[in-house]
């Protein structure tokens, strides 16, 4: 149980995907102009990362490791699994839960090949997590991603209306804010 807690807190705060591992920067900067869309993106990532962790663990432990292929087949096999999985999940959601499908909307297919999703699968493998730990790590890391992107969206909303020097407006200011946020998240290191 303590293990699980450690993984969750590690994923959300200490080893935050965006703020300390610098994975998934693309949606972090691209979809963080409004807090609403940022939250939608976060939810889609959470969804995909959790199920991706589950299925990649199965693929790795029941197919790749027994055949001794995990050293070089991980990346390509994981990408294949994740991409197909997201497509299938999208089809299922469209049929079974129209509201969830519409809520995740365009973000679901967008993050199919996001590096954060592949990253969590590869990290689960290098850390040697069990199935439960993998899924919890996927979920926790994704919550961390959501936290970071939503907080950043709030900051950018404030920045958009604030009086800034001309040369700082837009991306320059946003990137500096992201850097400062990352510094702040470094303060969590040593927590576990």
């Amino acid at each position, binding site marked *: 149980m303590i293990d699980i807690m450690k993984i969750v807190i590690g994923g959300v705060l200490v080893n935050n995907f965006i703020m300390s591992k610098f994975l998934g920067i693309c949606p972090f900067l691209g979809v963080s102009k409004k807090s609403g869309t940022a939250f939608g993106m976060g939810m889609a990532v959470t969804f995909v990362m959790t199920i991706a962790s589950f299925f990649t663990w199965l*693929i790795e432990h029941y197919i790749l490791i027994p055949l*001794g*292929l995990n050293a070089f*087949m991980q990346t390509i096999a994981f990408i*294949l699994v994740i991409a197909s999985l997201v*497509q299938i999940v999208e*089809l299922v959601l*469209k049929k079974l839960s129209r509201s969830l499908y519409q809520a995740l909307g365009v973000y679901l297919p967008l993050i199919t090949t996001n590096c954060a999703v592949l990253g969590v699968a590869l990290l689960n493998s290098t850390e040697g997590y069990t199935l439960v730990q993998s899924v919890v790590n996927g979920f926790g890391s994704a919550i961390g991603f959501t936290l970071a992107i939503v907080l950043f969206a709030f900051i950018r909303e404030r920045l958009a209306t604030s009086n800034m020097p001309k040369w700082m407006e837009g991306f320059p200011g946003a990137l500096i804010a992201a850097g400062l946020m990352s510094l702040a998240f470094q303060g969590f290191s040593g927590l576990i």
Partner: protein
Amino acid sequence: MQTILYATLILGGLGLLFGLLLTLANKVFHVPSNPKRDAIRNCLPGANCGGCGFAGCDALADAIVEEKAPLSACPVGGADVANQIAEIMGVEALPDQVRNVATVVCQGTLDRCKNKFVYHGIQDCVAASLVNDGNRSCKYACLGLGTCVKACKFGAITIDEHSKIAKVDPDKCQSCGACVKACPKGVLSLQPETVPVRLLCRAAEEGFLVSDNCKIGCIGCELCASACKFGAITIVNHLPVIDMNKCVGCMMCAETCPNGSLWGDFDNRKIAEIDRDLCIGCTICKKTCKFEAISGELKQIHEVNEACTGCGECAKKCPKKAITLSVRKHVRDANAKVGTTIVDAAVPKN
């Protein structure tokens, strides 16, 4: 060797498996969507260019089905696609959309409209128009310095060297309206490409002022208004305004215009032809004709003479649909007598 074989087999197998799963999921979890929507989606070009303002062709198909977008929303597909969609949606095929082209509403070439002073300033119409309303003697005239040429992104406008007046190539014009906004004189306007008559002068002045300045300007003589037998022309600000809903295209106004400022599409002027097999001699067309161009006694086959203006009123009234309109081969002869046939009045077209 074994490793490579395994790797290939595993990856291939996984790919095949997921492919099958996807196909299965697509079948099992197929959500029946509006068949109209799918049909519309198939009509659209599928380039997902976003030119319509929606997030791709799927989004546009959704919007059209929900009637949130017009049938002709796809700018790439144009009229073809719009008509197909109209058919799917159960709407009458759209009427052929009138294509607008930028039109130069001035015929004041240098030999007709003199310069009132020599302009040596910046070679731009906006700058020139600030100096005493420009250097042409008519203050409504095209200055010919090419501000519209620079504004046109499609190379459709040229300035003629000798006449110093803008000329639009209707084939290249995309009716974007950039030149209309750029012209400081308001000489350019977007007008339907094909019209029977068109006023090519904007001089809203007393006739004697206009005739001093320009040989081809509209002097507001109102002859066109009285020549129009359909009440389509009213004179506003010394210029005729043509009501295109009332205009039948007889071009009598352009024919009457004493100095040619009212242009008529004489190359495409129509003439009525009576089908001798269908005519029963009811005299309805003869009574309808406002130009005395149809002759014939009761129960005898009627004839059209060269006085016909091609207004088409007789064709609308004919109960036997015996009258068709075709492009005439000769210039109209206003004095054509009853009985002169079409071929005999052979005045060559000018």
